[in-house]
């Protein structure tokens, strides 16, 4: 059987390496796109990623995604987390590393996160879901008004809306006991569940209120269970 001619072998070799070069290029584009779209921790859409990084050609999406995820995790310490959304596939980029001290944030971030922790802390202490109106009543008792500029925090309403956009807090409708209409409720969003340590939050809230974590039975048990799960996992691996 005749061997393929030199030029034919060369051609097929070239097309193979061109294909893998193209793929490497697409992977680079996708990583860059995800990083840029997530610059403000916003929720990003799969369709946006496809149209920008793959120029609308979504055939490669599933094929190159595993490597993209690996790069995000290995180089940047980020992971892509799915957000429950009606119809469209949406995600957020979360850090896999403890944020640690507030020193690692610049001044305006520090203020935002302080307000965020107050809000998340309150929701947590109230067992995870509250009517939105109740949150604003609470904030008012510590001098933060929904429609007024705050000296340290800025515009509370605007910041709260941005926390929802960033998936720290999720807002939904639910019917309250004894009421005919639905009310607006809020609870922890996907990003908060991923990035905020309930244990640290409980301890911080307790410091604020001058109580012990064990005073809040439900929350304390939950945080202990969460830390026990991780130690159990470690033991299993060993």
């Amino acid at each position, binding site marked *: 059987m005749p061997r393929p001619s030199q030029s034919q072998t060369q051609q097929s070799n070239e097309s193979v390496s061109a294909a893998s070069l193209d793929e490497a290029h697409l992977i680079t584009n996708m*990583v*860059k*796109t995800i990083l840029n779209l997530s610059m403000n921790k916003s929720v990003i859409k799969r369709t946006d990623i496809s149209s920008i990084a793959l120029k609308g050609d979504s055939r490669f999406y599933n094929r190159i995604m595993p490597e993209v995820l690996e790069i995000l995790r*290995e180089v*940047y*310490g980020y992971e892509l987390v799915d957000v429950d959304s009606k119809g469209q596939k949406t995600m957020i980029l979360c850090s896999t590393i403890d944020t*640690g001290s507030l020193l690692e944030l*610049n001044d305006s971030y520090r203020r935002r996160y302080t307000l965020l922790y107050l809000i998340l802390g309150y929701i947590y202490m109230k067992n995870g879901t509250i009517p939105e109106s109740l949150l604003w009543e609470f904030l008012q008792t510590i001098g933060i008004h929904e429609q007024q500029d705050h000296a340290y925090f800025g515009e509370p309403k605007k910041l709260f809306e941005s926390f929802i956009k960033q998936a720290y807090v999720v807002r939904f409708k639910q019917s309250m006991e004894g009421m005919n209409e639905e009310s607006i409720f809020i609870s922890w969003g996907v990003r908060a569940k991923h990035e905020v340590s309930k244990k640290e939050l409980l301890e911080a809230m307790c410091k604020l209120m001058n109580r012990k974590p064990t005073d809040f039975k439900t929350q304390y048990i939950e945080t202990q269970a969460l830390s026990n799960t991780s130690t159990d996992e470690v033991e299993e691996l060993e």
Partner: protein
Amino acid sequence: MSYTDVHRAFLQACSNHGTLSKQQALDILIGIYTRFGDSSDVPSEDNLVDVVAKINERIYRFDQKISYMHYEPTEKDFFVFVNLQESPIDLQQNFYTAAELHYFRVLLRELTLSEDHTLGSMVCLNLTNETAGDGMKAVTKSRAEQLLSEWEQLGYFLMLEDKCYFGPKAIVEFEKYLNKNYADVITRCCLCNVTIFYGIRCATCPQILHKDCLKKYLRRLTNCPACKKLWSVAL
């Protein structure tokens, strides 16, 4: 030292801050070492340089870099997290409105065109007038104040004694862009050939030079490197 959570945490901190002074960077690295380091060593400046170099090896492929620069107006050193490319991908900023981004470009332009690359703070606010039109709502003066403050935090501008300067991040990120679009107005230090915005001006010719470059030069010679007249300006 292999690539660990120390590197990832520091990379995230740089990316979140945008710009870090050398001292800030070291403080942050010390905090990171206590959380993720494997020994009780306190990192030195050399460790800082190593960590940055290792990170840059990895992120270079994505057109990112942690750049180290000396900032003349405050004579301090900074680490700046930059995007190296100006492709459409890098401009996907779904955070600022079109008018606000336009305001940013107007500030860059006016800073470049002004003689000593500074603008009075009132002038900066009045430049919002240029952002109206084409169906875009103009940026309000109060929003402009917020933006200037945000952009200053990120390192794009610096307010010093009521005057606005290019910040470290603007200098590093937009050097190529400004060189390309304002080539006739931008100068280079004739000793190191790097683009220069802020430095020491010769008394007799229009040349500006970096303070450090000039110091080294004047150890051996006493005249202006450009016009050759006797150097008379105090350092």
